[in-house]
């Protein structure tokens, strides 16, 4: 038994050291958890805020995320995710499906019927109609590297200005626009 808990004529005090040790251990553990959570949130887990520039902002960017299969953008506060087949694209008004070789290289295209109009097509049409005031800022995930040139061709084909930047696969991203250009 601990001497502090024993009634004794010589020792009439209560030893607080074990209690304080437990408290310090607990505080240390909580500090460790707090610091870990903070470092994860501020480091690898932090999102990215993209600021158009550094030149003067003459066009308003529309942020579009591309991961190789889905395009993600925001409209009226809502987040829209839609599957886009980058291998099907129009050339001079005719739709083609990309034909690939065994090693994945593009060999050419096969004409296909025009696919049904999607929300992504509406986004493109809106950007094309406002090409003097808007442009597409594309966040390219690593899984979308392979198909990005064909994806971006959908924009370039409509003479929509683009900017693009790679971003880690699961890192959140949003636009940081000056207040005066916010819709």
């Amino acid at each position, binding site marked *: 038994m601990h001497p502090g808990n024993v009634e004794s004529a010589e020792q009439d005090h209560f030893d607080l050291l074990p209690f304080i040790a437990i408290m310090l251990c607990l*505080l240390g553990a909580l500090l460790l958890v707090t610091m870990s*959570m903070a470092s994860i949130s501020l480091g690898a887990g*932090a999102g990215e*805020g993209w600021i158009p520039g550094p030149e003067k902002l003459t066009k308003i960017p529309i942020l579009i995320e591309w991961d190789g299969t889905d395009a993600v953008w925001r409209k009226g506060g809502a987040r829209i995710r839609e599957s886009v087949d980058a291998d099907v694209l129009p050339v001079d008004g005719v739709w083609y499906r990309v034909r690939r070789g065994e090693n994945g290289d593009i060999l050419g295209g096969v004409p296909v019927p025009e696919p049904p109009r999607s929300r992504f097509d509406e986004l493109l049409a809106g950007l094309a109609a406002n090409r003097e005031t808007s442009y597409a*800022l594309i966040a*390219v995930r690593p899984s979308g*590297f392979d198909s990005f040139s064909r994806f971006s061709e959908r924009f370039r084909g409509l003479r929509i*200005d683009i*900017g693009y930047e*790679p971003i880690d696969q699961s890192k959140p991203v949003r636009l940081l626009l000056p207040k005066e250009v916010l819709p």
Partner: protein
Amino acid sequence: MSRKKQIGFEQPSLVPLADMLTNTVGIMLFILIFITLGAGGAMIARRLPRERPTKAHACYVLCVEGRVVGFRFAPLLEQFVAPLGRPSGSDLEMWVRAFNARKTETASLVISGEASVDTGPFGLVRPESFEVTLDIQVKPGRGESLDTIGQPASDYRQWLGTLDPKADFVFFMIQPDSLAVFRAARDEAVIRGFDFGWSPQRAREPARFSLTGSGREAGRL
């Protein structure tokens, strides 16, 4: 005091200590919750320019396996095709065979090529089908890593020092495993006043430069 003397030792109450401990733990938990909630929305701000045409000369940086290697294209091409001479209609097939068989190296890069030409009726070569690409890949373990790229003696920094920010721009060719080193390399270039561009590359494949299509280096032959 008299009572203490009677029994020799009085058991102190642990309630204030337990109270203090509970308060401290509670405060720490609140701090943890606030930090987690506050840091959850943390954003790293980046300034991103819009794509625009340039008349500056492209100088390439391959970002592969977490390493970067910079090079000028023209000297590599010159080194590669010098022994072959320029392709001409009369010996196009022979030139294509020699081009495909050739392989050169620098300290950090391996250069190979792929050329093709079709033959029409009567075995005649169809010059319009002539296609040439130059493949450039980084040797394993070569190039600057994220740890060394910012050091004053790094090869990448020295290579940037040989370029002219007014006449050249830096074009990064990035594989999916090299985003962090690309950002570090780009920061170094931007600090020195260079414009930049980038294109995504397929993983574990050489950078391919078309010399006959519509690419940036087309028409060099």
